[in-house]
């Protein structure tokens, strides 16, 4: 098997004596993969990216790119390019001068530079703005120049540091699709840093979730969303209800209120303290006299809040567990609404929940 595009082994980055930005990180990113590093601000994802780019050197560990050790090499000696969060376009150069910069530094022949710059600018639909200064372009256009400036060098790995953060919602969604298409087309390994879970879920082949300098879970979008292995990952990705529970037998757990519910326990010992993770969209509300699907869990609840989001209704319901439980019901034609104070059954399939250890 070929070497992974990027391989971090035992990478730790300390700033001064106190601050540990990245803590013993092991990560392997495959060739041609769209990999996202996801986490809240200050989790170490940008520091990780900067160590791959060469802007920071790791305090300990190894950074390999296609098998070659790069940990202490300066950025200009790495076959890697970056799309910066702020784009970092050179304000004193035109669009085409910006894009040509990398090729000029690599001493590519003039005629070839002109060809490649023209081709990549056409690719990002900026062929006609080649002579404009960056300040004359809109945010979305600047974003595409930054992308073109990196891609024109045909790097082995492209690093993207929250590249869509500064764009407004519609443009961001359009660029997400564009970026994913582009990556599929050029086949370059993308390492994408974001704090936006939706962005990560929709674009990535795999996601690594980070918190406090540690890589908590790596997996496909579906795995991260549906089978989080830690409370933090479950809570960080999407809306979720986290209920304290105790395993009482095979595929049975007891909630704080004493009610026992069915849940896949995966061989956990009876008496183990666990967290029951329930996505709001997997929950439904039923009338008290309505017939319930057999084998489903049910809790008697009281509605405490209803919010209208257009496509969905969000309910907060009280099941006597301390925290409120959030329920998401699709706004279908003829959907039955529950009023505040009304009692109902909260119903879900045992397969819809999963257990997170502690």
């Amino acid at each position, binding site marked *: 098997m070929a070497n992974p595009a990027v391989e971090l082994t035992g990478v730790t980055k300390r700033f001064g004596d106190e601050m540990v930005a990245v803590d013993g990180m092991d990560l392997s990113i495959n060739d041609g993969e769209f990999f996202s590093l996801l986490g809240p601000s200050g989790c170490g994802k940008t520091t990780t990216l900067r160590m791959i780019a060469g802007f920071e050197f790791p305090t300990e560990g190894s950074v390999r790119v296609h098998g070659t050790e790069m940990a202490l090499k300066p950025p*200009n000696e790495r076959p890697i390019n970056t799309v910066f969060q702020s784009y970092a376009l050179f304000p*004193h150069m035109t669009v085409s001068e910006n894009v040509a*910069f990398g090729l000029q*530094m690599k001493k590519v022949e003039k005629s070839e530079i002109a060809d490649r710059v023209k081709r990549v600018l056409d690719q990002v639909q900026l062929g006609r703005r080649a002579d404009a200064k960056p300040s004359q372009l809109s945010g979305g256009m600047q974003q595409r120049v930054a992308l073109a*400036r990196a891609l024109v060098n045909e790097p082995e790995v492209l690093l993207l540091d929250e590249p869509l953060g500064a764009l407004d919602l519609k443009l961001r969604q359009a660029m997400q699709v564009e970026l994913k298409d582009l990556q599929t087309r050029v086949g370059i390994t993308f390492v994408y840093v974001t704090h936006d879970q939706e962005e990560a879920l929709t674009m990535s082949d795999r996601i690594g979730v980070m918190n406090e300098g540690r890589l908590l879970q790596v997996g496909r979008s579906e795995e991260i969303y549906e089978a989080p292995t830690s409370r933090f990952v479950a809570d960080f990705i999407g809306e979720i209800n986290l209920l304290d529970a105790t395993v009482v037998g095979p595929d049975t757990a007891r909630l704080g209120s004493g009610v026992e519910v069915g849940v896949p326990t995966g061989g956990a010992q009876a008496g183990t303290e666990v967290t029951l993770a329930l996505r709001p969209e997997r929950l439904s509300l039923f009338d008290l006299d309505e017939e319930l699907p057999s084998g489903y869990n049910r809790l008697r609840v009281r509605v405490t809040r209803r919010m209208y989001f257009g496509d969905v209704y969000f309910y907060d319901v009280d099941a006597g567990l301390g925290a409120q439980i959030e329920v998401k019901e699709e706004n279908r034609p003829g959907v039955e609404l529950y009023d505040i104070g009304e009692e109902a059954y909260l119903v879900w399939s045992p397969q819809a929940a999963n257990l997170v250890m502690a």
Partner: protein
Amino acid sequence: MEPAGSKPRDGLMTTAPVTPELEQAAIRAESRRGFLIGLPAAFYLVLFFAIPLVLVFVYSFATRSSTGQTVLAEWNLESYQRLFTPGVLVIFLRSLLRASVTTAICLLFSYPFAYYIATRTPRVRNLMLIFVMIPFWSNFLVRTYAWRVLLGSDGPLSQLSQNLGGEPIRLLFTNSAVLIGLVYGFMPFMVLPLYAALERMDWRLVEAARDLYADGWTAFRKVTLPLSMPGVVAGSILVFIPSLGAYVTPALLGGAKTVGIGDYIVSQFLAARNWPFGSALSFGVMFVMLLATVYYFRAGAKTL
């Protein structure tokens, strides 16, 4: 409800809907207020700057009587013609050369220093800026006299040379002494604008250049230097102009062979009592400075 104390401004506040005429009146009132704010400074400049300048201009066409009196009649261009005699041109060229070399040395020393300050943590930065400004807290004349001691033939520099078995160093009253004094005196005027330009610098652009395969020196040449050009231009002008017309430094550290345009003008007004010629010299210097400044701004602007 109107907040307490707010008053209709200039009687323009009406309850009627706004019309184009009322809008124009409101805009005129705004601009009138702007004018009033600028008035004190404008008044000061006209009184103490423009009027004396006009006087000097008028004097430059006047005649010097045999007793050294300025005769405000028989207007002529003799003083200006004298600007182009070899003796005066040599002084002019010496001053130009000296100001250029001073500017170049200041730039060469200040850029790395300003770069160093600008890349420190804010605490260290402020401390170092205070160090740069400390000389301003004492009198320039006093500090220049101190250089006489340092550069004198029995000064510490010369002593050191002799202790090491060398010749005594005679720097005082030479062109080198004047140059040292000028560089010393005007260095902060170069450091501060350079620092201001580098401090505003977006270092992510340098990272971007490094990311695009530029080594450290190339990234500096292609990104940092062009983007700090406004500081280079401002600093150079701030050093070049005062060193071209410098008077104190050449007068104290220089000798007969180091006469610059500044001390030459002073001698016309005092010793030679030739006010018309001194005035013409002043305007000659102003003209050269204007040309130099315009040229420099143009050249600097090209790289922006």
